[in-house]
């Protein structure tokens, strides 16, 4: 596993250019995975869906490649945030998927071209991981949003430059990246990321029943199958 991780790192460097080397291998397991997008697999999965999806996914991969060579992380945030805010139209899951709540992978999101708040957050989260942002700096946050005069459940992506710093918020309601203090319309409730999330070890992850038990883990497993 260790050597495999090294191999992946090498490959990431070759494909995506210089990447910040993450610390302890064990803790960075998911980060490495996320960073090492399987480009061929991604394109194959996309091609299997539709030519449009393939084009969209290629655009996303190029965007991530572009972002990964940027030196400032703040700039990477902007590239990723804009990419999804501009391409994806906001729709409820009931309209897009016909179910009350569905967590779509970035590819599913791009295929439909529309999604709701957590789909944006997820796509941004994964793209930033792909662009080399350490996982520890990213959290998905359940918030209560005051939108059009009424409060509603919402999810955003928060970026912590330092562990105890004030986060920057990547949102689809307000496409501008702003510090949390400037977003008086949002009240945070609970946050999480993929760090320490046990998704099993080895190639059988996707088949492990444990992985699919929660929406979040199920999503990660599906994304991994698609090549993220």
């Amino acid at each position: 596993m260790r050597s495999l991780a090294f191999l992946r790192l090498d490959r990431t460097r070759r494909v995506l250019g210089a990447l910040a080397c993450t610390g302890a291998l064990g803790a960075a397991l998911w980060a490495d995975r996320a960073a090492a997008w399987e480009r061929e697999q991604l394109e194959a999965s996309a091609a299997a869906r539709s030519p449009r999806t393939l084009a969209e996914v290629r655009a996303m991969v190029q965007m991530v490649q572009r972002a990964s060579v940027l030196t400032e992380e703040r700039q990477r945030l902007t590239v990723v945030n804009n990419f999804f805010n501009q391409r994806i139209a906001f729709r409820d899951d009931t309209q897009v998927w016909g179910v009350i709540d569905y967590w779509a992978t970035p590819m599913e999101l791009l295929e439909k071209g529309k999604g709701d708040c957590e789909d944006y957050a997820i796509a941004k989260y994964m793209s930033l991981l792909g662009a080399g942002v350490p996982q520890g700096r990213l959290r998905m946050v359940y918030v209560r949003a005051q939108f059009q005069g009424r409060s509603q459940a919402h999810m955003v992506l928060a970026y912590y430059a330092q562990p105890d710093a004030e986060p920057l918020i990547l949102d689809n309601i307000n496409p501008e990246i702003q510090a949390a203090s400037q977003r008086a319309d949002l009240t945070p409730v609970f946050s999480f990321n993929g760090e320490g999330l046990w998704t099993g070890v080895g190639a059988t992850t996707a088949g492990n029943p444990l992985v699919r038990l929660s929406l979040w883990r199920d999503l990660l497993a599906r994304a991994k199958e698609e090549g993220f």
Partner: protein
Amino acid sequence: MSLIRQIWCLVLGAVLASVLGGVAVSTWSLRELLQTQAQLKNNDNANALALALSQQKGDAELMSLLISAQFDAGAYESVRWRNGQGKAVFERHLETPQAAQAPGWFVALLPLRVAPGLAKVSDGWRAVGEVEVRGQTGYVHEALWKASLNSTLWLVMVGVVTGLAAAVVLARVRRPLDTAVRQAEGVTQGRFETVLEPRVPEMRKLTSAMNTMVVRTRQMFEAQAEQLRTLHHQLLCDELTGLSHRRQFVAELSSALERDDGPLRAGLVLLRLKDLQGLNQRLGHGGTDQALLAMAQALRVYPEQVRGCLAGRLNGSDFALWLPAPKVVGDTAHALADALRAGLQGVDPGIGVALGAVELPRDQPMSAWFAAADAALARAEQGEGVVLELRQAPPSEEVAQGERAWRALISDALAQQRSRLLEFPLIGRERQVLHLECPLQLKLNPLGEFEPAARWLPLALRHRLSAEADLQALALALAAVQQDQRARCVNVAPASLNDGSFIARARELVQAAPAAVRRLIGLELAEPAAVQHFEVLQELGRQLRPLGVQLGLEHAGAGLAQIDRLFQAGLDYVKLDSSVVSGISADAGRAAFVRSLVVMLRSLSLKVYAEGVTDALDAQALWDCELDGITGPWASAQDIKP
């Protein structure tokens, strides 16, 4: 490896594999399940706790209290709260780790991989680190251990039941298999026995084939025996009456007088049909023959019903009956006289028969026997009709000494081992010694001489000491063989076989000897034993022949053809009685009879020897008849190859 053992190995292997495999699979999947459950519990509890902690507005006291409460109320190994830099802010953990109730090797064999549950804690937008939750897992191994024990127990029970069932089935197969094997072994040893056909189809075919083969062999044997009987009848018997003719009767009587195991005293009855010529004129040829046949009829009953009895027609009008038992001649002669009276009445009331009956000690020479009987017959001829003259010599002194004294003498001699074996060679065609015949001698009087069996064996038989004597002879022979490695054989009295413990004790003696010695030991029984004690004889063969001991018949004569189960006896050799082989050089008919006997016995894979040969011409004639060996005075006088 035997078939049965192979099947057993297969059954045990399958049971063992299913027990081990079953336990391993069930334990393994149970471990997976328990591990998954523990993992889920960790994850979910971490998330729930993080969610609760995130609602405390960053109040560290309150959050610590919450963590404590969660820890105290649940089954946790540890609950940690770390800040953003990974430093522990607050932690609770089990002071004494829960000890697993399962053995150490079991825990080591099935390690649990349960990662702690991790969840992010925040206070509003501020990240305040993460909680790490580890549930207790000691119970997992305990549960696994118990489950493994239970499934092992259950599968072992299934295994035992399977084993029992297999044992029953194998026993069902094994019985007919063993029977078939025994039958096959019997055939190679010359015992042609049929067995019951088993119900297992494959075995039934095999057994049926074997039985058919055995039956055919028997039929062949019986045909040969029948031929032999005819030959015997033609050559050695009187044409009209079917009784032995003179020469044959004399030979048989001579053999009976010399035999060791005969009685001390015996009886001889001579009968004469008076005035044969007058009868011929009066009744005509047919009437005379009828009278002679009636006499033969009355006599024939004895040899047919009592083994050892001899009856013969000595010449035209004379008949003889030999009774090998003391104190019976009087009753027998009276009964015979009555039977003749009744039998001859129908032919012609005027017919006269004289009977002269004597009882003498058996050690008297044949001439003395005939002289005494003739004298009695001469007296009887004086009378009219059927007349009996009986003469009994007074019992000798030795017998008068009293039964108890004799018994003491013999048993003392045996107990003190005042015994030795004589050695008479049995030689083969190349003058090589095939084995030594070893009769036992006892020194009845500690200061006296060794005495031959003929003197004490009849008394030993009467006092049921023959088994002791025979066992002593066997022991001596075993010891002697061990010394010089020369084959020996000893006699076994038929009466010894009646002693229930004889076979077991003989087997013990033989078993104690090295295998090389056992192969050089032979046991032989007189031919009457083969008929009277047939089952015991068979048993003797079954017990001793597998050890290497040879089993043979001695004093075998015309009666061999009468032993209709000879093919079941399981013998190694047969010694033809001197009454059969003596005078063979001068008698082409006798030679033909002996030759057919040899052919028949050979077909049962028996070796054929001749005993009591005195004459070099006889010996040559016997070699011409393809005999395997010769014993007797002639053989003892030969230059013997070592």
